[in-house]
């Protein structure tokens, strides 16, 4: 299938439902062929933004350019963006084949071309043998593939996926996300993937945008966002983070309780420090450490042990790799903690 790669530009997009502002000042550039994720909690506006690109929901203010052309004022059926719905939205009164043919028929493609294109699309998702089934006869994963085939059959400029894995069970979800990525790489389609699951976003996307309350919090690769969060929301939403308040003094971060933590960078005005659970080393009391505390609770997770530790700055979470036979710290034990200064980003509110 020959797809024309198209980039997406969103410029100063605002959208409200009546009085409620849902999206505010959205700006982003998605490169041609990129796998891009919108990540955020429910109500963050990520689905609304995706639907605005497809042309559904209230008319937004601002510009949406696909391949350089502003489509914000076009009705959905003239946009040529393919969307896979969370519920798949397969039409129950049509066979798989007719579902997939629908978009081609609407485009007035000659009949003799439709058949091969439908088969090619079904072949791509590996479901050609089920072409004459009705949707109700398919499993959830198969329905998902049909929805995908139906969308790629029209050779859209961009592919929009609205929580595509949320209706699948856990094992299938992992398999499907790999298949989705493989398919996207094969077709080279610019793809936007909406999810509330950071693992899905991390494992699939080239870059992602984290949204909260209708505002983009940060855009970047999964690793950039994890290692260098720009605010407390991003730090807390991606993985587990201990965020301590404090101030910068003489190249070190002094917590509210007065503990001194070394930092490698000197960010002026920084008032928060992000400590990832796995970047804190634990030792028994008395050894050299940056913070002292007492184990309040312990969870054995197999590959690691998670400790909840009470410190003068409150309870923090620490993960320690578990090595064979090593006895863990008991609840109530006094311990000292040291921090790798390179792995503790500073935040300015």
């Amino acid at each position: 299938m020959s797809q024309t790669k198209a980039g997406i530009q969103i410029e100063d997009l605002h959208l409200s439902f009546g009085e409620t502002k849902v999206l505010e000042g959205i700006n982003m550039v998605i490169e041609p062929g990129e796998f891009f994720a919108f990540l955020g909690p429910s109500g963050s506006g990520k689905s609304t933004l995706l639907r605005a690109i497809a042309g559904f929901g209230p008319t937004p203010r601002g510009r949406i350019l696909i391949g350089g052309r502003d489509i914000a004022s076009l009705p959905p059926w003239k946009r040529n963006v393919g969307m896979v719905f969370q519920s798949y939205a397969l039409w129950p009164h049509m066979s798989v084949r007719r579902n997939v043919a629908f978009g081609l028929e609407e485009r007035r493609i000659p009949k003799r071309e439709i058949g091969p294109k439908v088969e090619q699309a079904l072949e791509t998702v590996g479901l050609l043998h089920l072409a004459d089934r009705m949707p109700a006869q398919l499993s959830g994963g198969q329905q998902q593939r049909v929805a995908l085939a139906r969308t790629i059959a029209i050779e859209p400029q961009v592919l929009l996926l609205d929580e595509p894995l949320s209706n699948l069970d856990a094992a299938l979800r992992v398999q499907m996300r790999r298949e989705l990525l493989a398919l996207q790489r094969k077709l080279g389609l610019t793809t936007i993937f909406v999810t509330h699951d950071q693992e899905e976003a991390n494992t699939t996307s080239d870059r992602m945008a984290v949204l909260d309350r209708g505002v983009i919090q940060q855009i970047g690769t999964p690793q950039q966002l994890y290692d260098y969060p720009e605010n407390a929301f991003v730090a807390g939403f991606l993985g587990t983070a201990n965020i301590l308040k404090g101030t910068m003094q003489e190249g070190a971060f002094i917590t509210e309780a007065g503990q001194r933590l070394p930092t490698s960078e000197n960010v002026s005005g920084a008032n928060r420090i992000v400590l990832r659970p796995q970047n804190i080393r634990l030792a028994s009391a008395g050894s050299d450490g940056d913070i002292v505390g007492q184990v309040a609770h312990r969870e054995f997770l197999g590959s690691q042990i998670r400790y909840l530790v009470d410190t003068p700055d409150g309870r923090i979470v620490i993960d320690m790799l578990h090595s064979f036979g090593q006895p863990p710290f008991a609840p109530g034990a006094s311990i000292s903690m040291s921090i790798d200064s390179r792995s503790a980003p500073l935040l300015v509110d």
Partner: protein
Amino acid sequence: MPDSYQTASRGFTLFPRLSGAAISGILIAIFLMAFLILPVAQVLYVAFLDSRTGGFTLQNFQDFFNTSLFRESFVNSLYVSAMSVVFATLIALPLAYITTRFNFAGTAAIQALGIIPLIMPPFVGAVAMSLLFGRNGSVNLLLNQYFGFRIPFMEGLNGVILVQSIHYFPFILINLSASLRNIDRSMEEAAQNLGSHGMRMFRRIVFPLAMPGYLAGAALVFIKVFDDLGTPLLLNVNNMLAPQAYLRITGVGINDPMGYVISFILVVFSIFSLWASFLFMRGKDYATVQKGGGGLSRRDLKPREKWLAWGVILLILALVLSPHLGLLLLAFGTIWSFSPLPDGFTTEHFVTIFTQSSQYVWNTIIYAGSAALIDVLLGTAIAYIVIRTGLPGRKWLDYMATAALAVPGVVLGIGYLRMFHGVQLPFGLGQLSSFWGIIIIALAVRRLPYALRACMAALQQVSLSLEEAAASLGASRTSTIRRIVVPLMTGGILAGFVTSFATAAVELSATIMLVGRASDAPLAYGIYLYMQSPAGRGAGAALGILAVVIVALGTYLSQRIIERERIRQTMSHDQH
């Protein structure tokens, strides 16, 4: 196992000790056999008997199709039913479309419109409709005066089609709107996303998804019209099947085979269309609304579209309300003939019916009340036996009771006449077939399917664990039913009672054949008698108004009960 706490039967005994449920089940089965299955089976059987020799024959059917009047009646009944479906669709489709697809201020009005026709039995409005739309009715008088032409709204079969489609369109409206509302908006958005929109999308996606609901409604309209006796009779249209059956049996006699042949045809068509609508619905549960989704996407109307929508709706509203308006004019008018409006207004007709014909009202209250009581008793018992016990053959109670749906009133009436004709009652009550009590039984059997559904629904809401809790605390089965199950089912039972009562109160087709003398007659029959003569129409209309009030109050009450029950249910669920 629902009855896991019941002791298993130990071996074979000659006289097994029967549980209360089993005894009730057997009694109900006997009742249904005696008053539904056997009378109807006999009617179907007699259709194949030679009336002289008593041997098996197909001669009756041959005679039927060789008589031009019967052929004509058969074709007319099919034609009227099909055309009523067409016109009912023409009324219902725009209403369903406008209310489900657009943000429209008139949605509440249209929903009210959807039940107004149902609160008036069609035969009650029939005469009023002739006075408004007939050859010399108000509309045609005005048309003729100003434009010099008339429209034959009510000529012959047209009148039946008009009255029936105005009365029965809500069945299509309700079913179609429900299906449209059950379509998830992503169904439509997916189509738009793939390049479809407007009428094309409606035709390819939306309407096919709503089709099962539409067909179910249409099948219902078809069969109701096909079976109806009262409307053609009151409009004096006799060349249709149901009136012919009635006229043959009451005119020629109980042994005339034609009435039975017609009954056979009516039953076959009823079963066929019920079966067809079951087929349409099977495997096509298109209710696609997802969690977080919500019906079709609605859009605002442009100003011109808004005017158009209001125009269509007001036109339909005028048409739908015309039987009510006509009935009011007739009931309060003095003389109404060859003029657009009555000459003057009076309350005399109401005085007449209350002084001279109050027995109709009392009879109706007694008959419909007793029938509804029988229905909820049977309904509760059957529901309990079917859902909560393991009695063998319990499903058959449900099937038998529900089979009444496929039996037209005329057929049941003929069946009772045939079966109970020679049965003498003790205490000087006369023959069973002309005893007033048989009317109650006919009404009860006719309305039982509806009451049974209400009771089944109510019982399904009662969690089994509530009963098990009572049993584990030492309550016997009888006392569990009395103290736990029935109180929790009260709302559903009450709603079933009120619906049965309100619809039984205006039933005509079975009763008309079973009324032995005028003093035993209910309201519907009284209306029929009055409407026979022009002089009696005023009083007939006044009775009609009374009937409408009874049905309207009943409908309102059962809606209130169902609503209250629903709120109670959700509240108790919230506490979990």
